[in-house]
């Protein structure tokens, strides 16, 4: 075959045989750019028609073999190169399900032909490796449909050199209704909105953010007060987009919102009335400071973090209670977040009697399970894909995955040394370099077969001595400057809790091709958090005191369609425990939760769904996966509110708020009604509400009046105004 190649090559004009073309740098990008290795074609899980490429050519070695060697090398005709399938099919000289990918006289065709003619090298010797891509402009605002912007993509190589790859990379638009992009990198605006243009080379990706506005910000764009850096960065962007932020939420809306968001309870009528009556210009700021110091703050955030750290999953009920209590205590003392995670990471001992080893949920699947858990929960990165293959368009490789797993390779999960269901995390000494004790095998790289070395995600290797537990190095790395994930991940989660949407959505899906909606803001918040020594309350205070947080949820003409730039407050459904407790608070009756003592709040339930109501509204029974709660409304939720047992019990329990209000003969119906409304909504009834309800109460006997108030409470529980933070 090779003799035939030589003869074939020697017969070709010298201009075709080009020794400067390599598969990695020249051919694979063609396959990527032309969509050959896309997920709907040869890059799909099973490939197409027997030809399988790695997704977006992320695994160039396998693709090289597939083209040249696999299937007896039938894709290349060394005798007559132009008869090779690799040329004939994509140029549609024979039947090809993918149609024409490039023409016979195209540069792509010629490049492939020249490459084959030169012996089809994998790499050109001595050529530097492509390490990174830079897109410019990184952010663009296009004014009006059909306006255009051309992108420039520079490749940065291992020797520091840069090369224009604008014509080589693959372009894809995230939202084609907003903007499209062609093969040359020309972006065309289509409709108002925001999108991202992804730029790919095999194994690399970059993103440019595009915003399309219909008209430039007018000269009359209103000046709004800016309370802190959040407002600077949010409103700057809004101005560029020509979006005007909603007005500030009024005090009634604000107090309810900030109470629920910060401490998970409604303000009492007394608290509300006092706040509304206050003329202190800084009353909102002072209220925020007060709430962050309330004990309920720790309770709420323990429940939030319990989902993140999968409290109770795989470690038993008792272990779950231990960790939950520990989280609550840590949050109450305002333990810096880096220290909190460090303590979790360094936990060991029996689950039942010690809180922190209950962090090691993933250890049920060995060190690899911990790599998945740690990367997702702590670093905000979904690394799971890289377990089996280098990530197709993110930077993560199997080296990264197994390198992270290696940090947990000295841990052993002892089964029940203290008794039934009482597992323990122990630390083994070094008798193998790196060992997966769960699966009783050495932890070796699946491709190289070598022992894996502990490696920081996206960074270098950790110095690791024999017998040492490498976790302290990972713990120390959390707050290091070369760790770009830790602070951003938790900042994004906290931001989402208060603002209703993460700067990165999903909150555990940080990747190049999922850029933040406001990179400057995310970076600034992360920097603020780090400078604040990872103080959670310090960060929350900044968010709560921003104007952006305190905006009304009412849209205006300019921001009605904005769902990502925080030009208004985004509605959020109450967390199930908060909803349950809020209903009990308003009804004046705390319902008993199975397994918990009477009077215990739902937010205090460490493990388990508590009851059917809470389960229906999203509280996990087992926390077997790290995922955000689904707050999409369902029919079952609606039925629970309409006719469920919980609502019925609250409305009819003897001694509830209704009974107590009716017992107080000195109160007028108006006062009773106001108490209920202020309890539930932090506002009095509107005149229409008052007129309607008072009308029903007029001339009603005691039973009828009770029934009216029960109906009022029922209607409140079924209202969006109650069920949502607005």
């Amino acid at each position: 075959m090779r003799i035939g190649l030589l003869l074939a090559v020697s017969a070709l004009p010298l201009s075709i045989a080009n020794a400067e073309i390599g598969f990695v740098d020249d051919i694979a990008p063609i396959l990527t750019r032309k969509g050959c290795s896309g997920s709907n074609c040869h890059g799909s899980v099973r490939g197409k028609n027997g030809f399988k490429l790695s997704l977006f050519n992320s695994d160039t070695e396998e693709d090289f073999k597939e083209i040249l060697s696999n299937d007896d090398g039938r894709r290349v005709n060394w005798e007559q190169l132009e008869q090779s399938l690799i040329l004939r099919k994509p140029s549609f000289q024979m039947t090809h399900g993918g149609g024409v990918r490039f023409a016979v006289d195209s540069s792509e065709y010629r490049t492939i032909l020249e490459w084959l003619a030169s012996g089809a090298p994998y790499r050109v010797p001595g050529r530097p490796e492509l390490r990174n891509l830079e897109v410019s402009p990184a952010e663009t605002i296009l004014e009006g449909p059909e306006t255009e912007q051309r992108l420039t993509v520079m490749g940065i190589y291992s020797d520091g050199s840069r090369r224009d790859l604008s014509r080589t990379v693959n372009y894809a638009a995230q939202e084609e209704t907003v903007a499209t992009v062609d093969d040359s990198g020309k972006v065309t605006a289509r409709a108002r909105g925001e999108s991202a243009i992804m730029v790919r080379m095999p194994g690399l990706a970059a993103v440019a953010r595009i915003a399309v506005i219909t008209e430039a910000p007018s000269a009359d764009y209103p000046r709004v007060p800016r309370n802190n850096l959040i407002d600077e960065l949010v409103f700057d962007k809004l101005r560029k987009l020509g979006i005007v932020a909603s007005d500030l939420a009024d005090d009634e809306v604000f107090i309810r919102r900030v109470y629920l968001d910060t401490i998970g309870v409604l303000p009492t009528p007394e608290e509300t009335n006092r706040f509304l009556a206050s003329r202190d210009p800084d009353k909102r700021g002072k209220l925020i400071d007060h709430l962050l110091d309330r004990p309920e703050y720790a309770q709420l955030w323990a429940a939030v973090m319990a989902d993140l750290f999968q409290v109770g999953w795989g470690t038993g009920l008792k272990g779950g209670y231990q960790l939950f209590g520990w989280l609550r205590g840590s949050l109450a003392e305002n333990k810096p977040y880096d220290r909190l995670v460090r303590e979790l990471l360094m936990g060991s001992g029996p689950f039942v009697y010690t809180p922190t080893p209950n962090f090691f949920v993933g250890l049920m699947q060995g060190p690899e399970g911990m790599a998945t858990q740690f990367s997702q929960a702590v670093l905000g990165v979904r690394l799971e894909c890289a377990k089996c293959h280098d990530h197709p368009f993110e930077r993560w490789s199997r080296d990264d995955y197994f390198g992270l797993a290696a940090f947990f390779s000295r841990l052993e999960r002892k089964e029940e040394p203290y008794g039934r269901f009482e597992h323990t995390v122990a630390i083994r000494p070094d008798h193998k370099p790196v060992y997966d004790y769960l699966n009783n095998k050495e932890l070796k790289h699946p491709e190289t077969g070598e022992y894996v070395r502990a490696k920081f995600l996206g960074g270098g290797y950790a110095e690791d001595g024999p017998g040492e537990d490498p976790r302290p190095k990972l713990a120390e790395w959390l707050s290091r400057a070369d760790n770009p994930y830790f602070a951003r991940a938790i900042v994004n989660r906290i931001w989402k809790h208060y603002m209703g949407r993460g700067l990165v959505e999903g909150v555990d899906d940080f990747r190049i091709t999922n850029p933040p909606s406001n990179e400057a803001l995310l970076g600034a918040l992360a920097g603020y958090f780090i400078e604040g020594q990872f103080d959670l309350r310090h960060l929350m205070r900044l968010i709560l005191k921003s104007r952006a947080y305190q905006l009304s949820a009412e849209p205006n003409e300019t921001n009605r369609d904005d769902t990502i730039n925080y030009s208004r407050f985004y509605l959020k459904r109450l967390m199930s425990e908060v909803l349950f407790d809020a209903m009990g608070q308003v009804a004046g009756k705390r319902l008993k939760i199975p397994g918990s003592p009477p009077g215990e709040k739902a937010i205090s339930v460490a493990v388990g769904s508590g009851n059917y109501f809470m389960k229906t509204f999203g509280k996990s029974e087992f926390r077997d996966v790290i995922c955000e709660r689904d707050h999409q409304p369902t029919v079952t939720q609606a039925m629970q509110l309409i006719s469920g047992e919980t609502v019925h019990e609250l409305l009819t329990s003897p001694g509830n708020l209704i009974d107590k209000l009716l017992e107080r003969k000195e109160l007028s119906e108006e006062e009773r009604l106001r108490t209920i409304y202020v309890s539930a909504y932090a506002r009095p009834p509107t005149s229409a509400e008052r007129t309607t309800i008072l009308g029903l109460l007029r001339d009603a006997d005691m039973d009828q009046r009770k029934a009216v108030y029960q109906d009022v409470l029922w209607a409140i529980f079924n209202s969006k105004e109650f069920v949502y933070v607005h």
Partner: protein
Amino acid sequence: MTRKIAIALVILPIAVAWAVEPPHPDSPFIESIFPRGGRRGTQLAIEITGKHLAGASAIRVSGQGVSARVRESSDKLVTAEVSIAPDAAVGRRDLRIISPRGSFVQVFEVGNLPEELEREPNDHWEEAPLVRFPTVINGKVTAKDYDHFRVKVRAAQVITFDLNSSRNGTRFDGFLSLLDLEGNEIAAQDDYYFDKDPRLVHRFAEEGEYVLRVMGFREAGSNSSDYRLTVGDMPSASHVFPAGGRRGSTVEMELTGVNLNKVDGVVLGQGPATAEVVDRSPGRARVKLEIPPEAAKGPHPLWLASEAGELPNPLVFSVSDVREVARPRYTGFRIHPPVVINGVIDRNGAVDSFELVARAGETYSFDGAGMSLGNFLDPAILIYDSDDNLVAYLDDTAPNAFDKEPPSVDFHLTHTFERAGSYRVLLRDAGKRGNPTFVYRLTVQQAQPDFELRVLTNQTTLRKGKPVSLRVRVRRIGGWNTPVDVWIDNLPQGIASRTMTAAPVNTRVRGTFGEDFFVDGSNVELPLEALSDALPGRWPLVVRGRGVLGGRVVEHTASVDYPWQKTGFIRGFTHEQQIVLTLAEPENISNERENVAAVASQ
């Protein structure tokens, strides 16, 4: 033909068919005793609930000074009167109920403090009755039940609330919460002890009344969930260091805990060791203890004493007959065996290191005790040679034994040093944890191959035609590696058994999913059969074992353990150290068939 040969000829072919026999299903079984203890110098009425208790004729309480008399018995309930002499030793006793169907042991506690019974209604904190302390409250928590008790305290007073239930043989998993008078929780404690009993120690910042709530974890509870709740500001220690000493020596120990400024001394076991308080403060007390030369080797309860006498919840103090060393930390300490090293793994990451010089071929045994001293240290030992190669590592002697065995994370390592030289011995927690309560004892001596015998039950019931077996554990130590013969020494008339041999292989047990667990030793099942001439009765049994190693004949008498998970989760040696065999009357099975549907054949 001798009787033994005749018996053997009868038994041999039958023995093959014998499998492990569970206790007879209608043998007496005690679920609860209420109250489960009393103050010395008092008489009290108790209720024993369980199964198959009808016909109970006697109750025997181990040790001196406590007697009990059955008043009435039915299948599920026995009422009895208990008398506790004024000089009865405090502590836990075995209470054995005896009937023609067999016997069963549960435990009963003798204390020094005033006692009272829980008074219902107390389900709500607003109903909590006021209790005056110190006191021991005997109560029960059924499912979804809550017991509340109110205490009145002074500012800065430190009160201990100690719930003893699982330690006393129940399966109750108690939970304590301290509430203010509005029902808000101030403090809570779930599992302080291995057996999940809670202990809440609280320093009250402000004077006033507070409520203690007792409940089951996740509202679990039953009629068998009896408890003894000790409440008071008496001295209470979390640990002692050193946790042992050589008999015939004087040990200066340091107690750590609360209210130790009130401690008058300590009492070792049943006495009469002499103790002198050297100094004391609320958080610490130093005591000199003279250990009598005749004190038995092994663990003893160490009682704190105050003006009230011995206080509940003793610590564990271990007596040896070799040289002992006690230091808080060790770095390169040269070991000269035999020696017991007392230390503390007092903080996370702490590792104590020692140096041992061994000759080629020498075998040493290393026993690490942490859990058996009552703390949560999970000791692990590592041995490195002079080239820094790890030559030995042991965490648990019988890991992953699931719930087949009483749990233990202490280790017993027997290691032969192939090369002469200096070796580095490290002791740390398996999880590299550390805590001032992580007191340990490391016994290092030249390996003396030996074996221990333990009978894993304290009673068995036999009926004619239904043979049973007695499970005996042969635990090999110090490198013992030859078979051990085990037999029952004092068989009564008409009862047959035979000698069984324990091979030097740890018994393997299959788990629920087919996985293998290995116990620390070999189990043998000693068969017991009632012959035709056997008459109903009750007898103590003595089990013995013999082995030969290197020409040396070793014989031991078996100790008696509580049957695991039968006396709740109580483990270790019984107080009574007696196995009782009951030969019960045959069952009456009626052969009358009534109301049998006839199926007509066509």
